[in-house]
């Protein structure tokens, strides 16, 4: 068997078989599931299911029809709305806890829109929405059902650029959540792999095993085995988390079917894969380089942090990018190899990316990844036999005999 596979298998298995790795692998999805569970539970528990009452002083809602009782999804029941003859009856019902609040529709409602609400505690916004819908539905009960539906739903803004048929939905917060979520997962996986790689390289130096290894196989086979073995550890993690994320998304779609309407373009995921993979290799290779130049793992870890920091810079400017996805800052971020993996997919959801920008960005990233591998393998060759001595950047670039 090719010695590359021996190194690959050794590097991969020794991390993957460790309890620490398995714990880290399952703890993140468990933690997220726990947070999701807790927030859903909190929402369910805190929701007040009691009806609300109203007293109609305007005379407009005497024969009011109730609104359709169901919404889609988990919280599907709309609040029940009861009519009261006068305020005393409503007050008694409120005091008895039979209703959570009552509205008094003022006599001049039609001209002023004035409605009072009496409640012991603040009322959920859903209840307010349901009551407005009730008022609108009944005001428009004689109108054309199509017109009524349009007035109730409001306009749906779709942004369509002049030179393409791509659509940008104005009400799509889900897309940004996906970008941010993917970014965080990417960061975690890069840090895991990068950290393992860094440790794996520094360890050769600290353990003084380099010479035995170099007289057993070629540097290229050894480096490739180490890099791909440790990258695969990160990819295993990434894949597992993405599958878990997919399962969570399925559950979310079942719970909140409205999310179905927020279609996410599949080209977004393609773009993400195209930027994440070279970025992954680039950062891992840079960390290997640091590992080869440093003398001990603690020092190496401190320097390596510097490489993963620029990845999250777009998060700090997310408001500016979302507001102006085509300004020079946003374009600059999508071309710079460190910030491209988060900026490019994010912008693809906001604007129509010119092909040259996608091409240039991915081209630059791939070139940066190749350059990082070259630097890493050079640093590795030069630095590995220097026990306790640092290797300077100038030495890596100097022609080698």
């Amino acid at each position, binding site marked *: 068997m090719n*010695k590359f596979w*021996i*190194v690959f298998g*050794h590097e991969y298995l*020794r991390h993957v078989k460790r309890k620490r790795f398995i714990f880290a692998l399952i703890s993140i999805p468990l933690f997220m599931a726990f947070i999701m569970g807790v927030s859903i539970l909190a929402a369910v528990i805190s929701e007040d299911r009691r009806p609300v009452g109203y007293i109609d002083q305007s005379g407009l809602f005497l024969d009011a029809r109730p609104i359709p009782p169901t919404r889609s999804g988990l919280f599907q029941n709309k609040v029940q709305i009861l009519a009261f003859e006068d305020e005393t009856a409503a007050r008694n019902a409120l005091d008895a806890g039979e209703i959570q609040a009552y509205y008094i529709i003022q006599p001049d409602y039609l001209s002023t829109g004035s409605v009072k609400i009496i409640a012991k505690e603040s009322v959920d916004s859903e209840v307010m929405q349901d009551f407005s819908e009730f008022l609108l539905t009944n005001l428009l009960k004689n109108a054309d059902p199509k017109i009524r539906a349009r007035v109730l739903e409001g306009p749906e803004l779709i942004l369509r650029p002049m030179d393409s048929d791509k659509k940008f939905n104005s009400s799509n917060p889900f897309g940004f959540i996906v970008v941010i979520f993917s970014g965080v997962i990417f960061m975690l996986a890069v840090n895991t792999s990068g950290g393992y790689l860094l440790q794996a390289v520094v*360890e050769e130096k*600290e*353990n*003084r*095993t*380099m*010479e*035995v*290894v*170099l*007289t*057993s*196989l*070629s540097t290229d086979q050894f480096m490739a085995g180490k890099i791909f073995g440790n990258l695969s550890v990160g990819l295993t993690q990434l894949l597992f988390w993405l599958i878990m994320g997919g399962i969570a998304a399925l559950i979310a779609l079942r719970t909140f079917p409205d999310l179905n309407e927020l279609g996410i373009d599949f080209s977004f995921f393609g773009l993400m894969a195209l930027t994440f993979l070279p970025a992954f290799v680039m950062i891992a290779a840079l960390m290997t380089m640091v590992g080869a130049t440093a003398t001990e793992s603690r020092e190496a870890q401190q320097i390596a942090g510097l490489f993963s920091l620029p990845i999250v810079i777009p998060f700090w400017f997310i408001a500016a990018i979302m507001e102006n996805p085509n300004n020079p800052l946003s374009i600059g971020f999508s071309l710079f190899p460190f910030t491209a993996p988060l900026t490019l997919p994010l912008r693809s959801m906001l604007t129509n990316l010119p092909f040259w920008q996608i091409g240039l960005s991915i081209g630059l990233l791939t070139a940066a990844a190749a350059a990082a591998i070259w630097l890493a393998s050079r640093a590795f060759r030069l630095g590995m*036999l220097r*026990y306790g001595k640092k290797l300077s950047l100038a030495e890596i670039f100097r022609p080698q*005999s």
Partner: protein
Amino acid sequence: MSTIQVNQISKRFGTQQAVDQVSFEVEPGEIFGLLGPNGAGKTTTIRIILDIFKPDSGEVEILGGKMTEEKKNRIGYLPEERGLYQDISLETCLNYLARLKGLKPTDAAERVEQMMKRFDLYDHRKKKVKELSKGMQQKAQLITTLVHDPQLIIIDEPFSALDPVNTQMVKDLLREERDKGKTIVMCTHQMHQVEELCDRLVLINRGKVMLYGKLNDIRRQYSGQEVIVHPLNELPANLPGVQRVERENSGYVLHLADNLTPQLLLKNLVEQGVALERFEVALPTLDEIFIQVVTARGELE
């Protein structure tokens, strides 16, 4: 055909000439000493031989040609800067390193088990390497050097930090491997350690070859006109051709004039009826030869 042929190699690091026009050959089945003080260029020479470094000039042939990936499986190397993977079990570590030397998984496991038993490490095989004592780790390193039954064994500073028991064990092991026909290169600054083991040697100082050849030839070449004599009784007061007599322990060191050979002196003593317990041409130690050579060349620091 020589096992190793080093031809005029030079290597410079920055301003320092680490190896300067070094040449020597290692013959099959011998224990060869690569000697010199610390910083003489021994380890650099070894690394060039093993293709870890490229020489600035000169050539090396090993096992009949240039170093190849296949040849790496036929060489066992114990570097001076040596270690093992600390955070995994001894068994995993040894198996991994054995497989990197080209052994199949089953063969590696079998050989590792055999050798762990031989070196009394079998009971510790599940322990992490870092939990083993220094002596145990050194034995484990020897296993990684020999596990794949290499044709050529190169050991850099084999006795550094070894206690007398382990030093003896390594010496016995090296003799045993030589008797099996293996070629052994032993690289050390502890010259007295190799005197009893090496057949031939090269001595390097400041990157240059100082001495090269058979150990006995070199010692004879540098032996002065000195003879060690242990007579049963007193020595005769007058011995022709003997310039000076020094008392040493229970015997004497006789300094001979240039025209008197040890053989002639022995003949004289026998003719005079001097009963002898010991008569020996005083050969200098390698340490003494080394000092003599570098002093003569004005290179003693």
